[in-house]
């Protein structure tokens, strides 16, 4: 159970780290399952140059990993942050990526009314210089969010049009890694949770493993705008995996019932 102070941290800064929430033994087991699953995938790296392996959906394929979605340390935390009726938003397994320029997964003022949280469970240590998730604290809210969207988009398109490397962060007279931000350095066992409207990036480090499991959640979609936003960004949430659809586990059922309810509203 996270504290009121931790809730305030998430709401104010848009992220939260739970240090050493999982023991080394637990992480060892999770890592074993991760490796089995990611190595079994036939899909080639999504980007040969960056040697990224990205598998979606991920935890739904392995009963042991599925337990993470309903584990108190994750589910219980999400319950406190999103409130009742939150839904399952899918999962990912990723290996190898150590660079992503500044962006928000759900950018724009129109998206800020509907909170979506991504949970990263890193299987390798990350540092500011090597692949830690960097965030701009507080950028999940107006007006900082919109100032970033406006300036980054303006420069992104300008630079792309001239054929330059589209380093969006030149918009502020600094390179991407120089943007004023906070690196969520973590070691295996930590849980990183962030609002998907928060601006984030990853820089530094190649040639080392940077494995993580991502779990996604969204607050209870109650309006047409919520449903339209899910439709726009994550259509796949309306088609949960069979194993989740048929699950008898109360927590999984709760999350999926919300999805099914939203899907029915969408169909209507």
């Amino acid at each position, binding site marked *: 159970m996270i504290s009121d102070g931790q809730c305030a941290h998430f*709401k104010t800064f848009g992220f939260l780290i739970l240090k050493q929430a999982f023991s080394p033994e637990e992480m060892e087991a999770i890592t074993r399952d991760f490796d089995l699953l990611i190595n079994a995938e036939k899909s080639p790296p999504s980007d040969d140059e960056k040697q990224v392996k990205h598998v979606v959906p991920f935890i739904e394929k392995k009963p042991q990993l599925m337990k993470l979605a309903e584990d108190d340390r994750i589910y219980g935390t999400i319950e406190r942050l999103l409130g009742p009726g939150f839904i399952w938003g899918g999962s990912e397994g990723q290996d190898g990526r150590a660079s992503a320029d500044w962006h928000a997964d759900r950018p724009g003022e129109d998206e800020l009314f509907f909170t979506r949280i991504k949970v990263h469970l890193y299987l390798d240590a990350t540092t500011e210089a090597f692949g830690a998730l960097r965030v701009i604290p507080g950028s999940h809210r107006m007006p900082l969010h919109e100032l970033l969207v406006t300036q980054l988009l303006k420069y992104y398109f300008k630079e792309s049009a001239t054929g330059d490397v589209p380093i969006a962060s030149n918009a*502020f007279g600094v390179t991407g890694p120089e943007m004023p931000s906070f690196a969520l350095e973590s070691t295996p066992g930590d849980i990183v949770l962030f609002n998907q409207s928060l601006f984030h990036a990853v820089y530094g480090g190649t040639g080392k493993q940077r494995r993580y499991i991502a779990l996604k959640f969204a607050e209870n979609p109650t309006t047409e705008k919520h449903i339209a936003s899910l439709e726009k960004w994550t259509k796949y949430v309306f088609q949960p995996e069979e194993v989740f659809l048929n699950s008898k586990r109360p927590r999984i059922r709760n999350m999926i019932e919300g999805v099914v309810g939203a899907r029915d509203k969408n169909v209507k």
Partner: protein
Amino acid sequence: MITEGQVAHFNTFGFLLLKQAFSSTEMAAITREYESFIEIGEENPIQAEKGVRSISAFVERSPQLTELAIDDRIYGTIEQLLEPGFIWSGSEGQRGRSFASWHADRPGKEELFFTRIKVHLYLDPTTKETGALRVIPGSQRSPYHDSLQPLHHYHDKQGHEKTADNPHPFVLEGPEIPGYAIESNPGDIVFFNQSVMHAVYGRLVNQRRYIAFKFADRPTTERHIESIKKWSEYALHPEENFLNSANPRIRNMVEGLVELA
């Protein structure tokens, strides 16, 4: 002349770092001048208790340091960041401080309508762990500024000490608050909005000397004047040598201030 991107940086994040704006030769001369004046004058007694030497109206004491206030790299930058007609709001010379918990110099929603900028010219290197100014980027605007007030209240109430009935805001020690350290070397210029939340932590590995220059939008309303009177009454009483200066930039900055007082 700073770029449009740098202006956007200041407006978005509430601070700007101009790296190596002054050469090492210039910094050597500035440091010499600083040393000639830092031991002279009445120091701030509150700061002195903490082992910090802080002298106000510092720049005004030296013609050479006064030149910095009208130097293109400082004045020209301020001209791009504040509205036309901005005013001079005093200066400081400081030595020895390596700790200040999270606060804003001009805190509260009601202060954000009126931009005031402080410029730090550090004479010694600073790093995150050795006294660099840490800021919470973007915290000069509401509602982010408001939601960070627990940090400021903590600073005010506890005099930097944690107590059982007043735990750390966000359940974090001050140095763990997700801020950004503006690490700098002599020759760099740090500009920050005085409503941005900032702090200093770490060890004092050198003297951590700096010269501070302060500027503000020209007060045009009763609220502006009230705010100046509340936080920096001295700004309405510039030093005689500034009031009588023949330099057009200094004249522009101090003109009309005495009348406002």
